[in-house]
């Protein structure tokens, strides 16, 4: 099974993007950061008690599924949209959603476009092999707008084509738009149009058929959401583990019983995740929050208690 495999290798091989700031991006030393990266780190923390035991494989959109199917990577955490076809016919299983997103458009402010409905006749750049390509097509068809599609191999190059003026608009998930905008020379000269033309629940993906592995990846995510809900952070988790009397928290942090065994993990698996990677809120703030160059508001990705849709099943 994948778990045994991973344990014997001593690390998780994690497929990520080739560079989307805030989601998965390598600095010049080759250190990876981002929400998607943290999903893999959380899994590693759960299994090994060490969030660093991950190796990353940068993948383009079109390579990603084959890489996962072929076993080249153990988890695909590359802002991948959960869709019906992908879940059913590609031999994949989606785990949990770590970012609720929707596709949008970015255009230069001086183009004077206010809404996506104004885009009749525009040239649109996007990356090959994504749902974006299909959503874009659906959107323009639905609204009977004409457009010229320029579909480039890699996100970076699609952005470069947009920046050079090959296209009027650049389309991808809104989070990606924000991330990509931060990479442009003058981020403020570009605006993200208000429309959200699709639902894009993004999350880690595993191979179909290995339920144990799927559960581990899923619950590594749920633990982070639950932790935020419970107010546990990487700062206070050690203290809470020692002091708490809440049986729910005790169970979660492995202070009581052994919830890890059901997954084939050590008892303190959840503790390790929170201590080393942090709760979901921390991860969000650190990577894409308003204080980062990507600068996304929490919005729909807030906890359900705060008006968002982040709702994790309880750890019982």
């Amino acid at each position, binding site marked *: 099974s994948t778990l045994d495999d991973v344990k014997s290798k001593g690390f998780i091989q994690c497929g990520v993007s080739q560079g989307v700031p805030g989601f998965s991006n390598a600095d010049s030393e*080759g250190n990876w950061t981002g929400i998607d990266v943290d999903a893999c780190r959380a899994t590693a923390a759960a299994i090994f008690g060490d969030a660093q035991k991950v190796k990353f494989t940068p993948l383009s959109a079109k390579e990603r599924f084959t890489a996962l199917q072929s076993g*080249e990577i153990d988890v695909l955490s590359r802002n991948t949209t959960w869709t019906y076809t992908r879940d059913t016919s590609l031999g994949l299983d989606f785990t949990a959603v770590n970012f609720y997103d929707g596709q949008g458009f970015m255009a230069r402010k001086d183009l004077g476009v206010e809404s996506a409905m104004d885009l009749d006749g525009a040239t649109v750049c996007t990356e090959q092999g994504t749902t974006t390509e299909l959503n874009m097509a659906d959107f323009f068809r639905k609204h009977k707008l004409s457009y010229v599609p320029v579909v480039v191999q890699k996100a970076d*190059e699609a952005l470069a084509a947009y920046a050079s003026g090959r296209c009027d608009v650049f389309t991808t998930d809104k989070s990606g738009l924000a991330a990509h905008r931060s990479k442009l020379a003058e981020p403020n000269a570009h605006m993200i149009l208000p429309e959200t033309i699709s639902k894009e629940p993004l999350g880690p993906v595993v191979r179909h058929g290995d339920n144990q592995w799927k559960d581990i990846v899923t619950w590594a995510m749920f633990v982070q959401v639950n932790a935020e809900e419970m107010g546990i952070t990487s700062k206070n988790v050690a203290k809470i583990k020692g002091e708490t009397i809440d049986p729910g928290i005790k169970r979660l942090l492995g202070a009581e019983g052994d919830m890890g065994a059901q997954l084939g993990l050590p008892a303190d698996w959840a503790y390790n995740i929170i201590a080393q990677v942090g709760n979901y809120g921390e991860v969000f703030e650190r990577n894409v929050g308003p204080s980062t160059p990507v600068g996304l508001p929490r919005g729909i990705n807030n906890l359900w208690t705060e008006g968002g849709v982040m709702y994790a099943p309880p750890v019982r």
Partner: protein
Amino acid sequence: MAIEFKPLPSLPPPVNSVGAVAWIRQNLLSSPLNIFLTLFSFYVLYLLIPPVVEWGILTATFDGASKAACTGGGACWAFIGVYFDQFMYGLYPSEETWRINLALILLVILIGTFAVKTVNKLYLSIGIIVVYPVIAYFLFAGGVFGLEVVETSLWGGLFLTTLLGVVGIVASFPLGVLLALGRRSNMPIAKSVCIVFIETIRAVPLITILFMASVMIPLFLPEGMNFNKLLRVLIGITLFSAAYMAEVIRGGLQAIPKGQYEAADAMGLTYWQSMVLVILPQALKLVIPGIVNTFIGLFKDTTLVYIVGMFDLLGRIQAATHDASWLGTTIEGYAFAGFIYWAACFGMSRYSMRIERKLETGHKRN
């Protein structure tokens, strides 16, 4: 009695048929069409050279930390300076790049030793072909003698380009020899297997093979058995160039007269003995230029690994030109890459021409 023959003195040719004037007349102005072509050529040069010199040298900026520093209006060579290490070594940790340099120096020394007469060429070749790769591998990858492990996903830049090219050609060589021998053998099955292999590979673009190597090979392996992407790509490249190499070598084999085979047979040499001792040394010598050409082709083709997500020299440059602080330095990046590839390939093709000429005057006297 016979008149003595005194040859007339040789006179200098009429002024208008030698010297600079005649040269210009003959080579530039010999007919109206030629005059037009000369003027046209000057015009082309005029269009090309001044702007390039101005952009590339006169108004260029040579250092700075971002595009903003490039105010001259010309090329922004500062960009190359800043990214130079990445272009050379990819993401290889900078405190470890000495390992790559060391391996390179070692190789140069080893090859240089070939020129020394007293060294046993056989042992040296074995050293280069068998021992050196092992040393180089451990130097690059680390993990022994306290060398830090460096993931292959960090390998990149010109280092990766060279690695792919060199490994591709060296590894494809023995395979190419086998395929060429197989294709010429009179065993129908062996022959057809070789032909099918060679022709299939030669019929498809390298990119499909790289694609297969990078995504499809694992699908054909039992679950859990998998290996490094770099290794898979190397296998793909090796198989690809082996097919081309086989055809080059086959050309050499065909050029060896039948009498050589017969003489070897008559002496009682076995098939492999006669191949290794008699036929191949002659055939390979004949095709050295062809092999160099295959290598040049392969060296250029390594750029395609960028399409399957590896960052060789071109990949690193392409990525760097998308850096926000350096947007608009595309031309500089491509010019730099172009220069490196050009220098390498042009150098090699000249070298192969030299070998060709040397072989021509060598001991070919019948």
